[in-house]
């Protein structure tokens, strides 16, 4: 156990080692480790953000889906309503048209009937007159009974 000048040499060696470690070993390794730590932190943050975004997107999709579903239901009920309307309108129209046609036919029949009656009347009148004429020809003077015949004709 002898202390001598070796201790000075050892201190110098120690100082040199510490200085070199300070200058050439620690800074690059520390920088690398910090960079790696930052990178990992960034990666984790990005993953967290991605997860959050996915969650947001999912809720958005769910909302959109709900919206679309209600819209579809609305459209369908509208379409049903409209279809019912169209059908009932068509029914009404058909009934109306049918009625009109029926009415037309009825009035035409009436007219035809009236016309035929008129014609028949006139023919009957003529027949009656000609019959009466033929009956009366012998005994009735045409001229004398003209007025009576005319009023008869009008009455028939």
């Amino acid at each position, binding site marked *: 156990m002898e202390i001598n000048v*070796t201790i000075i040499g050892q*201190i110098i060696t120690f100082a040199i*080692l510490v200085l070199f470690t300070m200058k050439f070993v620690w800074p690059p*390794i520390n920088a690398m480790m910090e960079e790696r730590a930052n990178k990992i932190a960034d990666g984790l943050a990005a993953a967290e953000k991605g997860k959050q975004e996915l969650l947001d997107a999912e809720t958005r999709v769910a909302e959109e889906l709900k919206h679309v579903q209600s819209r579809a239901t609305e459209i369908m009920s509208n379409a049903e309503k409209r279809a019912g309307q169209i059908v009932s309108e068509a029914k009404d129209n058909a009934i109306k048209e049918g009625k009109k046609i029926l009415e037309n036919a009825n009035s035409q029949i009436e007219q035809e009937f009236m016309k035929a009656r008129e014609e028949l009347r006139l023919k009957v009148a003529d027949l009656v007159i000609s019959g009466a004429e033929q009956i009366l020809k012998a005994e009735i003077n045409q001229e004398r009974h003209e007025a009576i015949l005319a009023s008869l004709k009008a009455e028939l």
Partner: protein
Amino acid sequence: MSSSTEYIMHHLSHNILVLDNGNKGFFGSVHLDTFSTSLFLGFIFLAVFIYAARKVRVENPTKFQLFIEIIIDMVNQQVKDIYHGGKSKLIVPLSLTIFCWVFLMNLMDLLPVDLLNFINHNVANSEAKWRIVSSADVNATFAMSISVLFLIIFYSIKSKGLLGWIKELFSAPFGIAFAPINFIFQMVELVAKPISLALRLFGNMYAGELIFILIALLPWGVQWLLGVPWAIFHILIITLQAYVFMVLTIVYLSLATESH
């Protein structure tokens, strides 16, 4: 018996370069073995770590890089846990250097005790002594602990100011009324730190070395019976001592930055 004493003495003697015309005293001689072995080991440490530092990359680290990272992470974590003096550019490199350098010096204890003498004798045909375990030399351990003492003083002054530090030397722990007692307490505390640091490491390594030498005195057939367990146990001790030296350095420097 005298031959075994000679054997032990031979193993525990330094390779001394005599200076100052053979005068005894501080400048009289230098331990060439301690100095050059520790310098060589220090350069190995620097070479490995500087090589690693130049090659580091964030992604796809090599196994070598991961190994270096484990060591540096360990040191960094210790500093983070123990040191409360804020950001420091010195403290992690200092702790790393202490840990690795002390570990490498201690590691030499695991070389067979007669290996160097054998090579010396058979290859260089010389009987020169060479103590390979630098940390079993008080010069090496005190060199580090005295450097740490200077750093303790430096950090105290840096964080409290010169006047603040001097004031604390006289006013803590009992208040300014007991100034002389405080000062004596503080001085004892300050001086005890490097002494305990240095002697703890020196004592452990010296004792370990001595026991290896004693084991080497046994008949060769039974040496392994004690040698193997002691070597395995010593793997733990050399790591632990390097770790303790590092942690205590961090603790002392952290204490230096805190006010009492």
